[in-house]
């Protein structure tokens, strides 16, 4: 206790300590933000001169050193469609079942949430390995946009389940007995009352999942392939933008300029997605205050 009595806020020692802590923190934050700024500045500096309307629509030329990324944008979009189509019913359905049809603490509920959490910890390259041999070889889909999308479904599923589940549990608890008192069946309650109420939260999960899928490379390297042609169907191989950046950076000498421009495009897409998610989150909060 003597140490407590003898120490005062204005002692010289505590002032020096205060300065020291603040200084260390400021330096750490400067280093971090400086690195982020450095990365962004470099990407803009190297990439901006290559950006034009043609860059978004044109074919790739000379192994990527010239031309645009039109086919890659279409492939990326198709991969996203193939990923969302199975992922939304699987993720949302799983969360609905967990929140509405089983007790939270029951053994089966714990097993399913545990499985989903473990899935979230599997590294993306392992999804790539699994996708390549299961979807491409065993199911015979080959290197295709469909295989890539399905691999991403496995990878992003936990995000969808987690966000939908938290949206469902944050709904007002009296919605369910009220619907029951009106004589609605559970399925009708779910479809007509709970789903619309939880929709903004579910949309946040979907946008976060899309952002994660856009950023992914390792899971796509050997599932959706390297082809740079315009994809004609989801059974064609197609190169995602992220894979394109990887290929330009690693295998094409002097591909840096176009790679920066592609990275800039990818970054802008992810920023836009994040903006949508945070706008949705704001609206979600507001609607909760009103109700």
């Amino acid at each position: 206790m003597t140490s407590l009595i003898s120490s005062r806020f204005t002692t010289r020692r505590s002032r020096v300590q205060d300065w020291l802590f603040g200084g260390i923190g400021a330096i750490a934050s400067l280093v971090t933000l400086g690195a982020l700024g450095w990365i962004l500045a470099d990407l803009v500096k190297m990439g901006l001169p290559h950006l034009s309307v043609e860059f978004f629509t044109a074919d790739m030329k000379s192994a990527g050193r010239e031309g645009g990324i039109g086919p890659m944008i279409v492939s990326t979009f198709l991969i996203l469609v193939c990923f969302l189509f199975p992922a939304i019913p699987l993720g949302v359905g799983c969360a609905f079942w967990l929140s509405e049809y089983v007790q939270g603490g029951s053994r089966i509920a714990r097993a399913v949430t545990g499985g989903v959490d473990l899935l979230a910890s599997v590294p993306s390259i392992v999804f790539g390995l699994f996708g390549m041999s299961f979807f491409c070889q065993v199911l015979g889909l080959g290197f295709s946009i469909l295989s890539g999308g399905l691999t991403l479904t496995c990878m992003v599923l936990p995000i969808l389940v987690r966000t939908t589940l938290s949206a469902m549990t944050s709904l007002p608890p009296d919605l369910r007995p009220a619907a029951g008192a009106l004589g609605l069946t559970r399925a009708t309650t779910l479809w007509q009352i709970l789903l619309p109420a939880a929709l903004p939260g579910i949309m946040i999960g979907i946008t976060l999942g899309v952002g994660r899928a856009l950023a992914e490379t390792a899971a796509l390297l050997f599932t959706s392939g390297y082809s740079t042609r315009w994809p004609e169907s989801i059974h064609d191989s197609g190169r995602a933008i992220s894979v394109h950046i990887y290929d330009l950076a690693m295998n094409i000498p002097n591909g840096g300029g176009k790679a920066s421009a592609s990275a800039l495009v990818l970054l802008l897409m992810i920023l836009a997605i994040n903006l949508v998610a945070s706008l949705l989150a704001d609206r979600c909060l507001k609607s909760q205050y009103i109700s």
Partner: protein
Amino acid sequence: MCRLRVDWLVRHVLGLLAVVAGGLVLVIVWYLFQGAKPALESGLPRRFFGDPEWQPGSVRDPQYGLVPMLAGSFLVTVFATALATPLGIAGAVFYQFYVPARVSRWNLRCMELLAGMPAVVLGFWGLMVVVPAISRLEPPGQSLLAAALVLALMILPIIALTSQAALSAVPLSHLQAAAGLGIGRAGMIWNIALPAAKGGIGSGVLLALARAIGETLVVVMLCGNIAQIPGSVFDPIRPVTSTIALEMGYATASHKALLYAGGLILVLVIGLLVGGLSFRRKPNHNTVH
């Protein structure tokens, strides 16, 4: 009774979807195990640790030493986490206790931007900027150091965000009590806030560690990809993840089984880390609140 039948149908369809989603990880692990089985059965595990080199493609004298790869994964992960942890925690303390909330919110946005940065973009930037800089110091540039530096940048926001969340969850009454006793800001941070947030910060670091072990793109682009035990931080390495990424396109037979074994090792190590975390989390909640 049509409505009840619909109800029954919905319940069972949703249940099926949930079991598929929850069981997917078992399918993946089982699949990896099946793939790795030939390597585990043929007495190769002894050679994982016995063989000095990694030459699985060689026809005359294949070598299956996994040790350089495991060492590479371990070193780059620990190095990156050791770099990112002090920076992340110091930054979180700074924004929680020294800076007004208005400014702190912008830092949070920046951290989220850094956390959402695609690995391939970070790897590309490292290749254009970090590798040439290191190569000027000591060639070849693609090295343990380059991979660890950029990997640290990648996991830093995880540590910073979880640390700040843990620090902001420290009850205000504890901090007020400290101030009432006349303890200065630094003493309060060191003696009250950091110990109370220890559990949350620790889980953030473990989460970052798990992320770093599994990260592929940054590592494959920056570490030089030579399977050896590095003598210094300027030597190239080849972790497990980049071995899988580079070789799964052409690997066959026992070589392929080895890649599955590598994937299995990764999943088990990360699963243990994350599983241990969720066990830790429960007692933690009781002590903090």
